[in-house]
């Protein structure tokens, strides 16, 4: 049985949604910190913005759940498709030499996956309330995706191979 088919109550669905956004936000912040430390301020700022959006979404979802007691689910008990939440950027995909274009490419991938996650639930959850909410969230993800695509259109740097760093690696210790 897929996760969508098992998603039978709104509280659990909201718990998943909050976790999805918070994990995404934390990861974006982490990536922003990485970029800060490695002196790539534009991409750092990009990730911070993305973190901000995820955090905003998380707090909106929390508002949806006001009055409800959400179940406490251990981080490893979430049955995501992959190893982490669908909107969580993969640390393996980044480089200190990356450009804003790279960052946005990662972000749009995340948004697509988040959309697909909600969409699946909106189609296959046995609970009407869940399906409705999921459809709403899926639609919002599409909006976010569009915003990101507009942002992508505005930037001029490329998402081709990472620019190379002529300096060799250095031994700090």
């Amino acid at each position, binding site marked *: 049985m897929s996760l969508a088919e098992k998603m039978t109550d709104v509280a659990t669905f909201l718990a998943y949604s909050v976790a999805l956004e918070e994990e995404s936000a934390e990861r974006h912040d*982490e*990536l922003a*910190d*990485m*970029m*800060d*430390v*490695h002196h790539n301020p534009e991409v750092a700022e990009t990730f911070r913005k993305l973190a901000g959006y995820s955090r905003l979404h998380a707090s909106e979802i929390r508002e949806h759940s006001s009055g409800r007691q959400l179940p*406490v689910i*251990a*981080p*490893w008990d*979430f049955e995501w498709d992959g*190893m*982490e939440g669908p909107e969580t950027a*993969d*640390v*393996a*995909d*980044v*480089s*200190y030499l*990356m450009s804003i274009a790279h960052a946005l490419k990662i972000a749009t991938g995340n948004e697509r996956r988040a959309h697909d996650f909600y969409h699946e639930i909106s189609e296959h959850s046995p609970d009407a309330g869940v399906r409705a909410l999921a459809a709403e969230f899926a639609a919002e993800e599409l909006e976010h995706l569009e915003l990101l695509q507009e942002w992508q259109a505005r930037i001029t740097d490329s998402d081709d191979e990472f620019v190379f760093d002529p300096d*060799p*690696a*250095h*031994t*700090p*210790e």
Partner: protein
Amino acid sequence: MEQATTAKKAIPKDYKSDYKPIWCPGCGDFAVLNAITKALAFLALPREEVALITGIGCSSRIAGFTSLYGFHGVHGRSLAVAAGLKAARPELTVLVAGGDGDGLSIGGNHFIHACRRNMNLTYIMMDNEVYGMTKGQASPTTAADWEQSKLTPHGTGIRPFKPAGLALTAGASFIARGFSGDPNGLARMLVEAISHPGFSFVQVLSPCPTFCPEQMQWKKQVRIFEETDTDDPILAAQRIQADDGMSTGIIFRQEYAVFQAQSTAGADLEPIEQEFAI
């Protein structure tokens, strides 16, 4: 395993310091930091009662990025520092972390003895099959034909250790392998490892994007062990030997006598002084 309930719910951020990690973006160690802090939050351990002892290497910098009591010692000796601390302060939760070079080369002797001694410690080995900090030499877990090191340009020609196999033979009572691409799964593993009474060894496949860019493919190669953990060392040995080293999960778990340094309630010095008098 129980999630602790406290008045104020501990969150992973409580266990992080404000020191931003200096690891290269893409490094697997970020996930280990996440997983450790998630595990500690789950267990709701007061951070001043947790110690994190590290050696030397990129991964050993992890202590500075936490807000625990850390000790950043010298290369390869973290397990010894941890043993002394745990013997003197058995009530603390003592974690040890470092890399494959720190733990299996210079630290190799301390590793096998720590496995055998079975003190209640958790040892997290971030394995990227290279000496990252010193710019890319082969480590004891590097493939024999890896030719990217200037020290061993033809490859080492030496078969690498299987860290889990070494731990098993040396007598470790909890052996697990995690992957930095699965920080949540790793967090769960760490909760089990920390809760396990005895020496817990958690090898974490943690790629190095700078010196081993090919390791960024690990996420496509890693899988979860089909079997759940066993308490039978022979079965565990077979699984480890049959595996290509890319399967994750808790492999072996057994309860052996936990080493505790002998100590009785404090008498005083007077009777000892008296021993000398004629």
